[in-house]
């Protein structure tokens, strides 16, 4: 495993999002860290350089790795995310269907026809990177990011579906929007979507969205 140290940050490289999540969960067993943040194929630990020195941080990580990294238990449940596809809710859907040579119905059937896994939560509170997008739905990010993407927007890019928990700038190709609250600071659990969760998208009408 490639381990790099940069000031108060230690990066560990892995091969996949599930490995990154398993490693991050394992590293959190040592409460010394200020942050343990998984990426798509890496985990970065931030240590408190005022309290522990670089060599000690490295040793504590080596100790944690020595016993192996237990895989995360597989998730039983399946979270349904209702989505209004296209129209004002998914302003890029028409264009992306033209590019991909699909009708809108075909696109929606493909997108709702699979189970997905949340690879990563991050960027902004509750933003979810959802892995497992059908090969036929692969598009790159937009060249020009939008200044504002509405909360609940569902986008695709680089083989993933992105769920915008908050209104923010963004560069994903927008295909729809969900009324499901992906982040609510006042809820008992502000983060209902977690990395590793299995999810499925279901198509709803604009009337259902506003109901």
């Amino acid at each position: 495993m490639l381990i790099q140290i940069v000031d108060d940050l230690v990066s560990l490289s892995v091969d996949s999002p599930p490995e990154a999540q398993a490693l991050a969960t394992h590293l959190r067993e040592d409460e010394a860290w200020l942050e343990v943040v998984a990426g798509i194929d890496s985990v970065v630990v931030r240590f408190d350089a005022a309290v522990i020195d670089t060599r000690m941080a490295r040793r504590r990580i080596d100790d944690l790795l020595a016993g192996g990294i237990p895989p995360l238990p597989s998730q039983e449940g399946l979270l349904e995310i209702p989505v209004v596809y296209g129209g004002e809710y998914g302003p890029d859907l028409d264009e992306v269907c033209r590019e991909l040579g699909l009708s809108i119905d075909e696109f929606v059937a493909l997108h709702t026809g699979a189970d997905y896994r949340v690879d990563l939560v991050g960027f902004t509170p509750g933003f979810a990177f959802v892995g497992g997008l059908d090969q036929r739905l692969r598009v790159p990010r937009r060249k020009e990011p939008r200044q504002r993407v509405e909360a609940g927007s569902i986008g695709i890019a680089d083989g993933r579906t992105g769920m915008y928990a908050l209104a923010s700038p963004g560069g994903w190709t927008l295909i729809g929007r969900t009324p499901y609250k992906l982040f609510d600071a006042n809820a008992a659990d502000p983060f209902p979507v977690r990395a590793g969760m299995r999810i499925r998208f279901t198509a709803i009408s604009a009337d259902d969205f506003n109901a």
Partner: protein
Amino acid sequence: MSITVLKPGLQTTIQSRPRIGLRHLGVPASGAADPLSLALANRLVGNAWDTPALEATLLGPTLRFDVSCAFAITGAHASVSLNGVPVTYHETCFAEAGDELSTGAMETGTRLYVAVAGGLAAENVLGSPSTCLLAELGGLEGRALEGGDALRVSPVSVAKLETPDEFRPPMSSSWALRACESFETHQLLDDSRDRLFESNWTVGRRADRMGLQLGGPTLQISSNGRMPSAAVFPGTVQCPESGSPYVLSVDAGTVGGYPRVAQVIRADRHLLGQLRPGDHVRLLLRDQQAAVEELRAKLDYWRAWLEDIEQII
């Protein structure tokens, strides 16, 4: 008991300590962009370093005290007056009910801090009362101040204090930020690595609590400026497709898909909150050992005036 906002200024928010330990759920640090200046202001009015205070940006607010209250000003240099009489930075000041505190445009530096004895009421969300504008968390309804807002205070009486001269951070329009090579620095092509650490950069117009764009030579990078999303932190210097470095600050997102080509060392991250468009910046290359030693040296220096300095920077 309150302070009334007569004019809000350009972007005035309530700030305190950062949010820590939630980056894996996408929660940015937030908190004062220049936490050292926040702590210095709170010190002068007898508050804990992270007591909620005002952070003003480039153009400060006008406030009316509706109750007598001690306050202190630190950070970016602007003309500040109480009922038209100039207010001195870095000392405890005393306002009577009805007094108006007016802060003008920042002349050097970007962010000015106003601390009041007893602190400002603020909503504690996800471990901190700091305002996070993007997620609309903390502070006053998670937003910047608006005219007519009433800031609730509970004043306590305090003795007059002055910051000793050696603990008054200088404001400037040219900055040296010590930085380490980062995880993707090796992707910089040809002499781009040398350019990164040897050029005189200019802060671009895109400069806020999310981050600061640096103008100067264009960097060439082998990966076309994209990579699988990975963790980023305040002080991370990214190199996106454009080849213009972007330095992340306190409100930056928690993961990014641009190569990380440098990391401003912890000792100097508090300076990011004072950089403004047009300022000159150099990134001074440091190795791992120097980064740690320079943090230790800075902590040792400041501990004599701010005993919680380990939590502040």
